[in-house]
């Protein structure tokens, strides 16, 4: 599934996005490193209209000194989604983008049908920060970096700009304003956590269960923070099932008959 690069003007920003597929719209928000799609998005795009945004301040976009908070950024992105003519949608995102997706669900309860948060950075262990050194970062993002194909080294200037922006607006480790809003969130939420993630460990999952009235936590085995890169099929399968069936996804609909 080939993603097309496009741009949309919204809230005074020119916002880049990648789009592929047909079906119910699914919004994707990237992590602190910027927009990079992978096999999981290709699989999702076989069933959904996937729109992966590059938030203002990431990638080649100008430095974003205007946006002050995640809620504000969610407001901007909500306008971008509306400008694309999308009224009802599911929202998903990873890490930084997980928190953005959660804010988007909270701010748009009548538009968002379901949210899937991958290793969301909305609730974080005290004082855990991603390392800035590329080699250390790679070891932190992946449980098995040795299994991944060689990747071009990231542009240090872009990473510095992106992570700097993300850290400026991400908010505290425990975000009281967000957590108060989470208790009233009407959107069904699925939280996916990698069992080897040292940035957002699995023990964080219980907070989502406690705070969100309608939430599910699923552990993705043998994946670290970049769980969608490491286990694309596993992430796709559970996310797609949740998007299709929301809370009903707890009931298996797999066929057990092996021979007719």
């Amino acid at each position, binding site marked *: 599934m080939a993603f097309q690069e496009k741009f949309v003007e919204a809230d005074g920003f020119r916002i880049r996005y990648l789009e592929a597929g047909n079906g119910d719209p699914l919004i994707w928000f990237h992590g602190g490193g910027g927009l990079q799609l992978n096999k999981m998005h290709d699989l999702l795009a076989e069933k959904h209209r996937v729109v992966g945004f590059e938030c203002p301040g990431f990638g080649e976009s100008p430095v974003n000194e205007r946006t002050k908070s995640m809620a504000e950024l969610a407001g901007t992105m909500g306008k971008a989604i509306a400008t694309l003519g999308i009224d009802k949608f599911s929202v998903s995102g990873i890490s930084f983008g997980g928190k953005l997706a959660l804010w988007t669900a909270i701010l748009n309860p009548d538009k968002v049908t379901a949210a899937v948060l991958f290793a969301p950075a909305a609730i974080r262990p005290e004082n855990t920060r991603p390392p800035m050194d590329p080699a250390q970062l790679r070891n932190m993002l992946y449980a098995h970096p040795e299994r991944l194909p060689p990747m071009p080294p990231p542009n240090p200037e872009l990473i510095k700009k992106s992570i700097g922006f993300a850290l400026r607006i991400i908010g505290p480790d425990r975000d009281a304003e967000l957590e108060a809003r989470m208790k009233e969130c009407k959107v069904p939420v699925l939280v996916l956590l990698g069992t080897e993630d040292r940035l957002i460990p699995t023990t964080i999952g219980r907070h989502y269960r*406690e705070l969100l009235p309608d939430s*599910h936590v*699923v552990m993705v085995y043998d994946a670290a923070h970049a769980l969608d890169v490491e286990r694309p099929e596993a992430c796709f399968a559970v996310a797609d099932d949740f998007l299709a069936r929301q809370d009903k996804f707890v009931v298996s609909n797999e066929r057990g008959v092996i021979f007719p």
Partner: protein
Amino acid sequence: MKAALFSPVAYHGNASPGWPVPADVYSQESAAHSFSTALDRFRLGDELGFDWVTVAEHHFSPFSLTPNPMLLAGALTQVVKKAKIAVLGPTLPMLNPVRVAEEFSMLDTITGGRVIAGLMRGTPNEYVTYNVNPEESRSRFQEGLQLLRMVWTEPQPFGWQGRHYEFRAISVWPRPVQKPHPPIYMSGSSPESGEFAAKNHVGLGFAVTTLGLATKAAAHYRQHAEAAGWKPTPDDVIYRCAIHVADTDEQAQADMANMPPQRRFSISNPALEQAVAGTSYYGRDFEAQRGRVGRPGAIKDAVENGQILLGSPDTVMKQIKRIRDDIGAGILDLIFMHPEDAKARRAIEIFGAKMLPRLHEME
């Protein structure tokens, strides 16, 4: 040191050869007798002060009548009042890990926290039992263990998106009494298993091995544990072997004369064994691991190799000291091997009266 009394609940009646073993000459009376004998011995061991009693999982053969050791452990909760009940253990790759966690939690609750959770991969033949591909043995085991731990410790319902297992919502009741969970041991004769146990901070058990192989494997485990930032204690290492003890060396030797040859049902089906050997089941130390479950040799050699403890209490204490010194094992898991009940029972009594106090004094 600690001592465990292990019984596979062997069936002592006649049986046809091969594996799976046909039940054509099966005797219900013999099976019932095997269970009542085993329960009596477990009760006796508990009364004599054995630290643990041990049960295990084996299938489709008279070697053991406990295909589900959890069931026998459940019965033992009503018989064994002081000793810990060690289930060494369910063959994790062939079972539902959530069910295994639930069963251990039940046992831990009923006993007030006296359960030891051994997790095994199972002998090669056992992959036939529930039709599981032995090629996936290690990866199923490793995932199952991680899942089991999370099931025991995660207070909120959660789902699991594994390679081999998929669950949408797990929240087991009852919860284990021991915190964070019952002590976990795994079979660790192969280098891969020792490395995995070290990395995941679980205890190691040796069975169907020799003193030499276990010494090497225990050193490998310790080395990798150190690299992972921890130091196993003697309580982290179990060594299982057979034993016969009598009042004198001469009596013990005489008791063992004219013993019927031991049968190894698990490797008595050559085609099956070869098929499993053709997978990754044995791992990178293939030759040693495959040979480890070979046919038993002469008793004299088995004693020298640490596979059988044999003699008077003084002699056997020396043999035990060798196990402690070489392997660093702190838990001795003993199969009182004599086929005659009176002699086996007498050996248990001698061990309890004359050796357990000395064993407990050994560091």
